[in-house]
C-alpha cells in the first residue's frame, strides 16, 4: 500500500468543482481535469472508476458538506423560531461564502447525477430538519403543513435575498446588498406567517 495523498485528492476535487461550475458538465472529462489539476489521468483513475463515479462521489461529498454547514448548532427539539433562525443564518452563510459550491449544486441538481446527491442530502436532512418541523406541529407552534409548502414559505424568501445579493440588484434593477438586518426583517414576516 502507498500513502494516500490527501492534498492531491483535495486538489482534484476542487478543480473538478471549479470546472463543472464554470464550464458545465458537457465539456467535463478526466483528461481535461487531469491537465487542469496538474496530475496524470492515471492518478485520478486510482481514486475514481470513471467520470460518472468521480462526479457522483464529489457531488455526495459536497452535498453532505452543505448539510453539515446548514445543521451546525441546530437541534430537532429546538423551539421553532430559534431553530429556524439558526437555519437561516447557517444557510445564508453557506450560500454567500460558498458561491462555487452553491453553483456546483445547481448544475448537478439539473443533471442525471442529481439522484445520488439529492438522496444523500435528503437522508442527512431527514435526521434533524424533518423531526424539527414535526415537533413544531406536535407542539402546536405551527399548523399541519406539507414539506413543499413549508420550504416555499420558510426558506425560499431567504434564497430570494441571496439571489438579489449575488445579482447585486433586485428584479427592478435597484442596487441590493445582503445584510443581517434585512435578513431578520424578512425572517420576522416568515415567522408571522407560519406561527400560530
Amino acid at each position: 500500500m502507498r500513502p494516500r495523498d490527501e492534498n492531491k485528492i483535495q486538489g482534484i476535487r476542487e478543480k473538478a468543482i471549479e470546472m463543472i461550475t464554470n464550464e458545465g458538465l458537457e465539456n467535463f472529462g478526466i483528461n481535461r481535469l487531469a491537465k487542469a489539476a496538474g496530475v496524470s489521468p492515471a492518478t485520478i483513475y486510482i481514486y475514481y472508476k470513471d467520470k460518472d463515479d468521480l462526479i457522483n462521489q464529489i457531488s455526495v461529498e459536497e452535498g453532505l458538506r452543505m448539510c453539515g454547514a446548514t445543521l451546525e448548532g441546530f437541534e430537532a427539539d429546538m423551539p421553532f423560531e430559534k431553530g429556524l433562525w439558526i437555519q437561516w443564518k447557517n444557510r445564508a452563510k453557506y450560500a454567500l461564502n460558498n458561491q462555487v459550491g452553491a453553483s456546483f449544486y445547481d448544475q448537478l441538481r439539473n443533471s442525471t447525477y442529481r439522484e445520488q446527491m439529492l438522496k444523500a442530502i435528503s437522508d442527512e436532512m431527514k435526521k434533524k430538519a424533518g423531526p424539527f418541523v414535526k415537533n413544531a406541529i406536535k407542539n402546536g407552534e405551527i399548523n399541519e403543513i406539507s414539506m413543499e409548502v413549508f420550504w416555499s414559505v420558510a426558506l425560499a424568501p431567504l434564497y430570494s435575498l441571496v439571489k438579489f445579493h449575488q445579482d447585486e440588484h433586485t428584479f427592478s434593477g435597484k442596487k441590493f446588498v445582503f445584510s443581517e438586518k434585512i435578513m431578520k426583517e424578512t425572517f420576522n414576516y416568515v415567522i408571522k406567517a407560519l406561527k400560530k
Partner: protein
Amino acid sequence: MCNHIPEHILICKTNIAAESDLFAVKTVLDNHHLIEQWNIDQEDVDCVLRIISWHLSYADIILIISRLNYTCEELTT
C-alpha cells in the same frame, strides 16, 4: 477515510473504444478468476481500462488484452 491507496489497481490506456469492442473483452475479463473488478471508461480519449486484481501485473493485463487484438499499455501516475 482509508489513508492508503491500494497497489492492486491497474490503470491502462487501450483502444477498446466501441460497444462491440467492450463486448469482445467482457467475457474474458468477467471470467478471469484473478480479476476482482474491472471497467473501461469509453468516454475518455484513452479508453482507460481499470482493473482491480491482487495477483495480476501490468504485463499480465497487457498480454490478456493483446491476445484479444487490442492495444494496451500502462498509464503511469
